[in-house]
């Protein structure tokens, strides 16, 4: 199987998570022919790939052209990580004027960098065949996906929240017990409740459960616990500003 691993705008964390599977890395790359993986290799083989794994948001004109080329060149396109699926933390700026953004960080109103004006998810610009959530992705889920792809199938999407995994690991509920602004109820499970297990509230890095996450319910529950609307909306939009129900909340 021929594979390409590509990066758009982001921190490179999803591809690095793959490189960080130290104990299985050699085995993985024994089964897959890597055509393009600029983060780790200078070798680039031209030709169509069976599967493209793409991380990062579509942020610049270059990203846009690149992802279109990748789409044309691949049979299966998998978006990996929150940037690729929801636009990443940078997408929480959706709605803010380009000039204001440039001014705030680069002290100029010029669009020096071919910025598209917003940070888009890959599925907003090309067809995506599968999405593997996480910030970063989970090694185990990546390996499962790869095994399926090698067999010519794609796994089912997970449609249960992080809360289910808290129950399995017997983690006391951070919302009920401590009144924390935990986003577990609206966030796709699969991380084994990493953060609540470590006494930290879920920040929603795996993104919302598509078409099912009840963000309005999450908001009203946390308002009842005494949280300010502004702070809850800020948290909800960090990894999911482009999810329709969250963008409704942002607009008020």
């Amino acid at each position: 199987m021929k594979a390409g691993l590509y990066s758009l705008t982001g921190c490179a964390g999803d591809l690095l998570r793959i490189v960080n599977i130290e104990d299985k890395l050699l085995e993985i790359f024994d089964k897959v022919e890597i055509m393009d993986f600029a983060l780790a290799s200078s070798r680039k083989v031209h030709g169509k790939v069976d599967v493209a794994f793409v991380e990062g948001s579509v942020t610049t004109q270059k990203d846009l052209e690149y992802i279109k080329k990748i789409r044309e060149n691949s049979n299966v396109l998998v978006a990996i990580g929150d940037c690729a699926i929801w636009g990443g933390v940078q997408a929480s700026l959706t709605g803010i004027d380009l000039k204001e953004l440039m001014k705030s960080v680069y002290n100029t109103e010029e669009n020096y960098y071919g910025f598209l004006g917003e940070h888009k998810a890959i599925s907003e610009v090309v067809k995506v065949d599968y999405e593997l959530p996480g910030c970063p992705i989970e090694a185990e889920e990546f390996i499962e996906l790869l095994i399926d792809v090698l067999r010519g199938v794609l796994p089912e999407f997970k449609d249960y929240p992080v809360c289910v995994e808290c129950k399995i690991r017997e983690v006391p509920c951070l919302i009920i017990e401590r009144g924390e602004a935990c986003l577990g109820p609206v966030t796709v499970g699969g991380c084994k409740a990493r953060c609540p297990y470590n006494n930290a509230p879920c920040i929603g890095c795996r993104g919302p459960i598509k078409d099912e996450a009840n963000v309005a319910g999450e908001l009203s529950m946390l308002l009842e616990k005494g949280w300010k609307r502004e702070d809850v909306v800020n948290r909800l939009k960090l990894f999911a500003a482009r999810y329709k129900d969250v963008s409704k909340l942002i607009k008020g």
Partner: protein
Amino acid sequence: METANEVIVEHVTRVEGHGNIKVLIEDKRVKEVKFEIYEGPRFIEKVLVGRTYYEVPDIVARICSICPDPHQVAAVEAIEKALGVSVDWQTKMLRELQLLADVISSHALHLYLLALPDYLGYPDALSMVDKYGREVKMGLELKRAGNVVKEVLTGRSIHGCTVKPGGYTRVPTPSELEKLSSTLRQSMEGAILAVELFSSFKYPDFVRDENVFMAVDPGGIYGFMGNHILVSDGGRYPVEEYKKLTNEVTVPHSTAKHSSYKGRPFMVGALARVLLNKRKLKGRAAEMLKELEPKLDAFNPLTNNLAQAIETVYAVERAVEVIDELLDKGLKQDVEVKVKPRRGVGVSAVEAPRGVLYHCYELDDEGRVAKADIITPTAQNAANIEKYIKVSAERLLSMGEERLEGPLELLVRAYDPCISCSAHLIKVIKIR
């Protein structure tokens, strides 16, 4: 007759981030040099505005997947200064351990997977397995050791979740720490092998030129945190003066701003740290340095790789020592300091694997971020990289060298730039 000749040679790879090197040559002279960073702008400092201090470490981690840890530690240290909070010895030691772990995994990644293929003549580390299987496996083992420490300490090897202003949400158990200690001890062989490898290579001297260094003053022993910055001209400044030290300007060809000190580009990173703090190294790293010091050339950034290797040996030994001290004293759970929001400003500097990293926050009455300013090592190094590209290109041309791309790529990679994501292009434009 003038002809413009544009040569696109190859993708500059095995560097984290999107960047180009452009060299414009006219009549065998270097007319212009640009280290272009075309990484999409993410405006992370703007993402932070309006958010509570508590959320900051989770967000700044996302700046970089190779060094989320120094970003988190820098953030919590700056926020604690702004809020007037001080943490106890245990939390400080755990933060040092977190930084050491990141140095180990980051340097191992750079030395074994990104830089070594250059010196052994391969496109990547995986292709080296047949002939250099032992090296690749030991490099991966070393990298894994750093990542395992991060996983236990922060909940994840990339973008950990336990790091908060006031302390860690979860403190490792003694048995977890004992396990980490044994993993680290086993990885020592890989660190030593890196020194053997990178001290055996010949570093070409076409890059040599005078240099200015900066590093955090760690105090008594070699380390990665402190309240002052050391400069190779003898200067020592409080971190609060970071703006004067970095003098950032926005340049159109790069989403990383460019820095200068007294009008000159400067270098941060392992070479700067080892040369400015060499008497503070201890143990095996100190012994190795004694023998290898002549090879660490302040005027040759390529020797940064060797400095990284020596520093990795130190980091592994020191991490084991930190764990021993923590176990000796006995670990306390629930030491997270309760933090009260208030208005304030705080600046911190920590050493990320690639050099000095500054975080500055202005918080409002409710502890929300009013303003954030983050200066990364690669942004500081960008102007220095351009300077050395120019010097090197001129020398190579005068030596009659036709193909500049390989050597220039080697040079850029030696800085271990962390631009954020792959795919790069070296473009040499020749005008005859």
